């Protein structure tokens, strides 16, 4: 995958960045009272974030 100017985009960095942004948004919403985060919601969320990052890392590393 190539970005503007033909520069190679690192898929892992892109996905990890997006996932972390979503994570940050969720935390902001929790802070502002728009979302109520408990261990029951945080645990699957954290697990999903880790899973997506690991999956993308592994798939992009495969030959």
């Amino acid at each position, binding site marked *: 995958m190539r970005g503007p100017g033909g520069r190679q985009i690192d898929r892992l960095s892109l996905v990890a960045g997006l996932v972390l942004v979503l994570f940050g948004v969720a935390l902001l919403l929790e802070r502002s009272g728009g979302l109520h985060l408990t261990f*029951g919601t945080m645990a*699957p969320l954290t*697990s999903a974030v880790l*899973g997506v990052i*690991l*999956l*993308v890392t*592994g798939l992009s590393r*495969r*030959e």
Partner: protein
Amino acid sequence: MSPMADIAAPTPRRPASSLRELRRDPEHGIVAGVCEGIGRRLDLDPLLLRIVFGATTFASGLGVVAYLLAWWLLPVEGVEPSAAVAAAEQRSARNRRAALEVSFGVGFLVIAILLTFRELGLPFSDVLTWPLVLVAAGGALIWRQSVGRPGAAGTAAVPAPVSASAPVAPPLLQDAGGESRPAVISRIGIGVTLVVAAAIVFLQFSGALAAASDVALAALVVAIALVVIFAPFFVRLLTSLSIERAERIRSQERAEVAAHLHDSVLQTLALMQKRADDPREVAALARRQERELRTWLNGVPARADGERWLAPALQAAADEIEQAHGVAIDVVAVGDAPLDRDGEALVAAAREAMLNAAKFAGDAGAVAVYAEAGAERMEVFVRDRGPGFDPAAVPGDRRGVRESIVGRMERHGGRAAINAAPDGGGTEIELVLECGDPS
């Protein structure tokens, strides 16, 4: 001008420029050769290093930890893997790590889904969830072993022997990647254990374990009785299958050798009889056949990934020129390395040098090509015994040497040196290309 033998002489050992070059030398060392190896590479007296290790061991115990770490981490002197093997190992390690990351990633996602279901109050209880997870993991391990991994054979770093060409199915306890039997057994064992654990967990959660234990005991007794009865027959069956398999391999190997001899050696001998009046053509045919036979005997497989490597590329160029000009070209390659754009330029320059030698010095005997490839540099020497020439006296409009060899090497970050003796001492063209850090 140095003779070819001088070119092949080993280069003197130089001090290590990085920690990656450190080696241990158990042959000359006292324990594991750590001090000996490091001392030699860093140009230090090994005795000094031994004193340092000893003192730090008695002072804080760190010395022995450092020594053990060095013993574990440093490779042994003299067993340098070739660039080809190192590249294959690196690729294999990368794929293993990728597979591990994918497995953990899928695992985390499954856990996330299960936790979400639980949070939403969906009817997913531990009675079903954890046995299912264990069965899935154990079943995946067993299925992966039984069916084999796609592409595993392609990661094998060791050249396949001649018999590998025979289409014989791999034995049950060895997968397509050629893994050792203990590794395969342990993987199957872990898989079976996970499935059994899943069954036990399910029975325990559902309260049926006590009743099941009676049934299990009865089944165990029956199984032991059956093993005692049928074990000798089973052993005999396995032995006869093994013997039959060995016979089949031998028979296929014989057929393979016979077919190859018929298609290559016998055809060439017939051709040589027809061309008996042309000694040069006969010699060329014999050399081509010899080279082909040696390659086949060495069992060097064709690279399936389509990547070009230095030694085969040089050999292909030499074959082509030898066929076109009827001049013998001996190629000797020590080590091998994959070709990038700069490497392809090196091969093209070497091909031009071989072509010039065949054109202008073909009557003076064979052209010698010596190549050495490692992780850091690739070198190619092309030498002929022709009349030689004065490079300064070459007219400006003759661009073969200037552009196709010297200019091409310089454009790709390498260098070319021409050692030519106009008095009939032959010509030697030296091509050197420094490679980047492979990591």
